[in-house]
């Protein structure tokens, strides 16, 4: 098995695992039952998406997806924080 093949299959497995994980998070988002559960689901989804992008970057050897991952890592919490704050205070910016 060449390195390329190892990476291709191995990282493919990793991707599948992450996507499964996303699926479960989505289930939480859909089912709720409460708003905080959904937000938690979205947060998990973001996290998994970011990891997925990293793995995908390795798998396709494209260094160009780094920004997308960085943005999720650095700014992705904005959306979920806003949601959480909305729950807490009823409005996002006071």
């Amino acid at each position, binding site marked *: *098995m*060449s*390195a*390329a093949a*190892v*990476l*291709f*299959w*191995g*990282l493919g*497995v*990793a*991707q599948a*695992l*992450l996507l*499964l*994980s*996303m*699926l*479960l*998070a989505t*289930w*939480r988002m859909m089912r709720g039952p*409460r*708003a*905080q*559960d959904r*937000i*938690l*689901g979205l*947060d*998990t989804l973001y*996290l*998994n998406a*970011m*990891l997925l992008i*990293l*793995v995908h*970057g*390795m*798998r*396709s*050897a494209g*260094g160009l997806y*780094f920004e997308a*991952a*960085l943005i999720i*890592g*650095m700014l*992705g*919490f904005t959306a*979920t*924080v806003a949601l*959480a*704050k909305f*729950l*807490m205070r009823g409005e996002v910016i006071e």
Partner: protein
Amino acid sequence: MNTPSELPIWAAWIVVALAISGSLLALTGSVGLIVFKRFYERVHAPTLGATLGMALIVIGSTMFWSFVEGRLALKDLLIGVFLTVTTPVTLVLLARAAVYRDRVEGDDHIPPE
């Protein structure tokens, strides 16, 4: 898929192992999200992916790119740093909001203020 071939096979195995174990941790976290019964339990689960899972994959990625580019390519570590700093913000706020909501609804399990 045009995976680069200049990666030594052992490095490839390590990268793959890191990535898979990281992914597994993330998956475990998501499973926790499903199997736990209460919100306050569920909220712990994704942390798996956000901490160690993320760390493993980031390390794998760093290693991978360092090999590919033939130099120390550490920028993926930045993702790790920022994610570590930001994820708790969400969770803290979310937990606080949940506590507030449960209190308003009169949930007994929540300690009063």
